[in-house]
């Protein structure tokens, strides 16, 4: 019996001793992705996490400025901002010469060739290719002259014909293109900054064929020769990356925060980025505590042990040099009704349900009181949001809720069938609905939880097979149109308006507002629409959430950013601090 004990402990010691000793002289950054990475094909980058990885390897014509707030576009592959025609339909863009693709076996003798405008045209066409069923197609659907017709034509052909010219994508010369839109589309530049429209090369697509999504060949700051379906992805610095410099000015106060220390330096500032895919929150949190990762989005449940009183860092974390970043997100959570359902068309009922929900308690339980109660659809930080506006029905008042419910024809819930709210089968979402159900039980309304995998949920919403569902909508680009579109009648499912909500007056305002360029006039329109629809209660408005990030002392130049797929090239690491602090972990 003793022999067993001895052997057991010897092997245990051996195992723990041969774990890799962490070297400190490599300039590398460790990041965590909470979801599995499906692949590196820009046109399929529908979830933010795949977008973040693609942003390290591919690039778009434009990019959000890493520091300036509110968010602002800056040229990336493009030489400068586009010259737009008077009627706002023709955008002429010039790209920088001398930009090289990554070296790859797809090109002649393995050397990456220079980026040409043909590649931009090819990438946009590829987004429209009917054979590829690109998820990002909604971005340019019915926007560029001749593109939809080209797509329709090729749908019946056995193979898509890329050589055909499209009126809306006119090549002026090797470095200049002029886009021709069907109708004004002020968000067009944002579309060119999203991963869907990042630039790929024709040779790589044809060379790798089916395996293209595992062999990214872009122009970005980092290279990834091949993507293994493993939980660790290692990016190395792109040797042939063009001259790109760290911006020298940012938001007011950035220099005090040390964000301009590397101003003017050539980026990328590190040699390697290592991304670990960790799905469960416990291993995620523990890995960060053991300094296996430099940056962590704090999972809801580890919040209490990290943040005191919702504001500053817990002492034992501060002693290890960790820093806390808390920033409002451009998002809104909501319980959406299905307006096809006659019962839910009853406005009074919707208002009663909203007033019976104790948002304050929900905020405490699920967001550690860090979120802001959403008054309507537009989140703070976008044009059209007025801080002073208060939605009369976003208030916890049981008496009023009971009165409204009676007026709605269901005195303390009698006659109202049980309502099922569909959600994703995640523990937190289930608990939120259970809390909502507990609150509504007080006024006699029974709520049931419907658990679904993500695709099942999307399926039910698109096919209108639900009474209510819960969702959080994050901004695709910093423009309130992205949120207002969720209530625009023509967008009803299978479009993005999952509530299938129609409000004629709202729709006319939407049509006229979204054509205008960004400016005070458009913001006034957005404001009017936002407050008009608020009292209608198309959804039960939830929260605008705050995101909390923790970073170790040696991670430099980090600033919270909503559209952060191209942010990682600006990060830096301070090796001395890392070496000295590592002893503490």
């Amino acid at each position: 019996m003793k022999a067993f004990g001895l052997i057991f402990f010897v092997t245990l010691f051996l195992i723990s001793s041969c774990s890799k000793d962490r070297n400190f002289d490599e300039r590398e950054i460790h990041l965590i992705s909470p979801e599995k990475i499906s692949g590196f094909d820009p046109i399929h980058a529908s979830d933010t996490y795949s977008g973040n990885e693609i942003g390290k390897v591919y690039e778009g014509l434009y990019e959000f400025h890493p520091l300036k707030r509110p968010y602002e576009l800056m040229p990336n592959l493009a030489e400068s901002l586009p010259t737009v025609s008077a009627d706002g339909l023709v955008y002429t863009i010039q790209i920088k010469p001398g930009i090289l693709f990554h070296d790859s076996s797809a090109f002649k003798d393995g050397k990456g060739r220079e980026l040409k405008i043909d590649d931009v045209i090819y990438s946009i066409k590829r987004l429209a290719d009917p054979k590829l069923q690109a998820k990002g197609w909604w971005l340019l659907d019915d926007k560029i002259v001749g593109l939809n017709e080209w797509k329709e034509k090729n749908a019946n052909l056995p193979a898509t014909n890329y050589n055909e010219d499209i009126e809306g994508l006119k090549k002026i010369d090797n470095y200049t293109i002029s886009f021709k839109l069907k109708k004004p589309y002020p968000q067009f530049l944002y579309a060119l900054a999203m991963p869907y429209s990042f630039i790929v090369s024709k040779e790589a697509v044809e060379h790798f064929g089916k395996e293209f999504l595992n062999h990214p060949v872009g122009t970005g700051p980092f290279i990834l020769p091949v993507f293994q379906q493993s939980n660790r992805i290692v990016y190395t610095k792109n040797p042939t990356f063009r001259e790109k410099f760290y911006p020298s000015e940012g938001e007011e106060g950035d220099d005090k925060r040390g964000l301009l220390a590397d101003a003017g330096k050539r980026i990328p500032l590190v040699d390697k980025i290592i991304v670990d895919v960790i799905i469960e929150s416990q291993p995620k949190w523990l890995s960060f505590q053991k300094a296996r990762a430099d940056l962590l989005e704090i999972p809801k449940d580890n919040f209490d042990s990290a943040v005191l009183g919702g504001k500053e860092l817990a002492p034992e974390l501060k002693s290890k040099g960790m820093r806390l970043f808390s920033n409002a997100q451009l998002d809104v959570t909501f319980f959406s009704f299905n307006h096809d359902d006659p019962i839910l068309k009853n406005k009074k009922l919707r208002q009663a349900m909203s007033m019976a929900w104790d948002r304050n308690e929900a905020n405490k339980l699920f967001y550690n009181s860090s979120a802001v109660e959403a008054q309507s659809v537009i989140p703070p930080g976008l044009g059209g949001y007025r801080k002073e506006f208060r939605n009369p029905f976003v208030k916890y008042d049981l008496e009023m809720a009971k009165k409204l419910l009676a007026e709605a024809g269901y005195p303390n819930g009698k006659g109202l069938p049980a309502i099922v709210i569909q959600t994703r089968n995640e523990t937190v979402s289930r608990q939120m609905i259970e809390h909502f159900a507990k609150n509504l039980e007080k006024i006699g309304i029974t709520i049931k939880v419907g658990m679904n995998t993500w695709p099942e949920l999307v399926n039910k919403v698109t096919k209108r097979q639900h009474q209510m569902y819960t969702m959080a909508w994050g901004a695709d680009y910093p423009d309130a149109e992205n949120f207002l579109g969720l209530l625009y009648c023509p967008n009803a499912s299978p479009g993005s308006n999952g509530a299938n909500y129609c409000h004629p007056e709202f729709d006319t305002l939407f049509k006229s507002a979204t054509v205008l360029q960004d400016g005070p006039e458009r913001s006034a329109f957005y404001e009017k629409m936002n407050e008009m629809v608020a009292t209608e209660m198309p959804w039960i408005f939830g929260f605008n959430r705050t995101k909390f990030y923790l970073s170790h002392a040696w991670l430099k130049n980090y600033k919270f950013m909503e559209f952060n797929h191209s942010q990682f090239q600006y990060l830096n690491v301070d090796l001395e601090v890392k070496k000295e602090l590592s002893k503490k972990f």
Partner: protein
Amino acid sequence: MNKNSLWKDAFYRLAQDKLALISILIVFLYFFVALFSGLGWIASNWSQEVGASNLAPSFDHLLGTDIFGRSVLQKVIRGTQVAMSVGAAAALIAIPIGVILGALAGYFGGWIDDFVTWLYTTFSSVPNIMLLISITLILGKGIFSVYVALGATSWVNLCRLIRGEVLKHKEREYVQAAGAIGGGHMRKLFRHILPNVSHIVIINTSMQFQTAIKSEVILSYLGLGVQGEPSWGTMIDDAKLELVRGVWWQLAGATLAMFFILLAFNILGDALRDALDPKLKGK
């Protein structure tokens, strides 16, 4: 009429084994707890808030409270009802299918035997977890589909065992004697052979019970388990987020509750096999 049949004799031998006795007591205890909570006598108000959220175990809240301030102890008791019902339902589905198919295959042989053997070989080839998941997907989420899924996967083992045992007993002389006095196939099978292989059913059921309970936890983790009712599976699933922030009592409560009943079933299974299986008598 002193009725000391083989069953009484077996029970007498079982009573010798103290551990088996304790296990039987535990099983009955859990059964009654499940029954009472099912009838609503106890833990029917599990969803009431009894204190602040995530209170540590204290005198008035023996197992503390969960995220919504509901008593973990009440949820554990309620969870017993789910666990025992999952086990019982799986057994109720598996026993008839397994016994009838196994008996027919073992007794009649020929093409019936080939068909039944093909059926259970095919069913046992598909990995259990896959069957469980896909059946719950078909029937939709909820306790009913958990019952059916577990029942559909647990009859295979019983069928194989019963078939083997019936094959052996078919040759025994008391069966041929029954034939000699004019008894037909049905009498030979159901009056003579099945009572003599029924101990297999009991032993196997106690083993299947604990597999069913453990499967329910996995299904809850995958989001396919019981909806709306607290079950040990959902409690452990919640715990996976809480352990790191020091909320250990929900995990401890559910795991402890499961530990005793699973331990009881396992020990009972072994003891029953020694007591009932004539071959192993007196080991």
